[in-house]
């Protein structure tokens, strides 16, 4: 049986005047996977997600969600989706439970409120007004409002932006728990660690287009190197020539020095040190190559610039 993808869009375009927020974007998300749209602010992630959620109309392109189309099947589709927008200010003076009960009432079927409260870890806050919750708790409540319908497909638009590390990890657990029930998630983020932790596949989006697509591991492997070495010398340096050192795959200018992608650290480091030390080496650090490095490699810019 050929399975329908949970989400598909082809040549999606959204223009605001002359500006193309989304500029010919293709996506296909399979059932049961957690798919991430990773990109800097203004890359067109939110516009794309809102079109997929049926909250915004594309200028051109085709969208299919769970095998259905927004213009024909809106009512049926809404019953099967869970949505958490980038920013929603839930009523300040409703309690956690009252908010959930209201959202639950819109759906023909769903999960018991107690279960969802347990799931997002807000059981002991059920009688608190929304305005008394912390940022992380508010965000988990927003996700809970999307989970009360027990959706097949969950949209999360930058679910952890602005949260502290502990709140982020709590939210990740909620998403992983949802995925473990065989459900599909589409999330946007500009945190590479979030994409690496949660997503089966990632599309890197820049200027309204997908510029790279694959599992986080594949994308990092595409650099042809596992490690990144960054260093600073007293005299400013050009990246030319550094790429030729043993096991070094590429060289570029970084914030205040040079960044090299390196296949084998133990082979490359002695050569790098031998050449950098006479120039007055003031700082050297290494880290595992990440999606951030993939993005920088593809665009020459950082994700959070």
């Amino acid at each position, binding site marked *: 049986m050929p399975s329908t993808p949970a989400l598909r869009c082809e040549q999606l375009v959204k223009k605001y005047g002359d500006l193309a927020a989304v500029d010919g974007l293709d996506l296909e998300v399979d059932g049961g996977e957690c798919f991430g749209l990773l990109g800097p602010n203004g890359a067109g992630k939110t516009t794309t997600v809102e079109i997929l*959620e*049926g*909250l*915004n109309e594309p200028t051109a392109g085709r969208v299919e969600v769970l095998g259905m189309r927004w213009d024909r099947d809106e*009512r049926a589709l*809404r*019953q099967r*989706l869970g*949505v958490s*927008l980038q*920013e*929603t*200010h*839930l*009523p300040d*003076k*409703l309690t956690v439970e*009252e908010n959930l*009960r*209201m*959202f*639950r*009432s*819109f*759906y*023909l*079927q*769903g*999960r*018991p409120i107690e*279960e969802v409260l347990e799931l997002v870890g807000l059981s002991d806050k059920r009688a608190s*007004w929304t305005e008394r919750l912390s940022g992380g708790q508010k965000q988990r409540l927003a996700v809970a*409002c999307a989970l009360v*319908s*027990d959706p097949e497909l969950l949209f999360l638009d930058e679910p952890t932006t602005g949260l502290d590390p502990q709140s982020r990890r709590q939210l990740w657990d909620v998403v992983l728990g949802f995925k473990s029930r065989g459900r599909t998630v589409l999330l946007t983020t500009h945190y590479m660690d979030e994409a690496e932790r949660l997503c089966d596949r990632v599309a890197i989006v820049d200027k309204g287009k997908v510029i790279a697509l694959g599992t986080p591991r594949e994308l990092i492997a595409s650099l042809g190197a596992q490690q990144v070495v960054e260093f600073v010398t007293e005299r400013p340096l050009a990246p030319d020539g550094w790429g030729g050192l043993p096991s070094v795959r590429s060289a570029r200018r970084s914030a205040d020095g040079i960044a090299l992608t390196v296949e084998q650290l133990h082979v490359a480091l002695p050569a790098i040190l031998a050449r950098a030390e006479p120039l007055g080496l003031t700082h050297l650090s290494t880290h595992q190559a990440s999606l951030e490095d993939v993005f920088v490699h593809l665009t020459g810019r950082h994700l959070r610039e």
Partner: protein
Amino acid sequence: MNAPTAGLKSAPISPLWELTLARLRLFFREPGAVFWTFGFPLLLSVALGIAFRNRPAEPVPVAVVSAELERSLEADPQLRPRLLGESEAREALRTGKVDLVVLAGPPIAYLYDPARAESRLARALADAALHPRGAPATIDRPITEPGSRYIDFLIPGLLGMNLMSAGMWGIGYIVVEMRTKKLLKRLVATPMSRAQFLWSFVVMRALFLLLEMPVLLGFARLVFGVRIVGSIALLLGVSLIGALAFAGIGLLVAARAQNTQTVTGLINLVMLPMFVASGVFFSTARFPDAVQPFLRVLPLTALNDGLRAVMIDGAGVTGIAGQIALLGVTTAATFFAALRLFRWR
């Protein structure tokens, strides 16, 4: 038949009821909103009821410049003459301490401001006291019956004003606030029926009416003895159609506004003219004839006229058919236009 899994357990909750409940909770948890809806009209009725209470006619202060004049005027208990020098007398008139100055003649001169009713009254009383013409062939019947006092006029006006501002602020402002907080957008991302969402506001206003009316009318009855001459059911009916008309206008001003400043401006633009010109505090008859046709088609004028006709004159449905029709048309037209223009995102 058993539900196969706990996950499919479906609770039979009505979205319209949940939405209405949310509106009611949010209202009662906002002390400011409760005060403006329930407390403010009561305070206003007390303040105006005291300021314009019916009191025994007080003697009119008059300045005179001779003891002879003072004696003549003292004969009339409605006058309270004060003996002053001419310049002090003029000063007292200018500063409003007296309503009339009588200068000794001949001929006797009256200094007064003909634009002021008190001044004209003082002149007439003084003139009558100085030139007695014997008892006239008339008798006086002072009217102090409930139903003809200022407070009897004021209370229906306050009820109308309250229905207007509760509809405009309670719907217009709240809807725009939900839009700026992206809550509207979040709600339309669910299968929530948009019609039910709008209905929840109408149901809320109708339920509120059942609280607002008894509070204000009960208070007016207890404190001022204001009576409802006509049918209470009809009064409720007129209030309801009035509340709906302003619910519609509230939705219409909120239909497209993207921030609360815009909608605040729009609400004031709609409400202020009616506040002044629709006969809340004083009769619309005070305005020139030329503008009367415009005042009559204002929804608040129709509502106030309808409420007064039922409360004071005991009018039946036929007596206020015009006002009911106007409010009905306003309701239908504003709801229709609001739904056409409404911006959900």
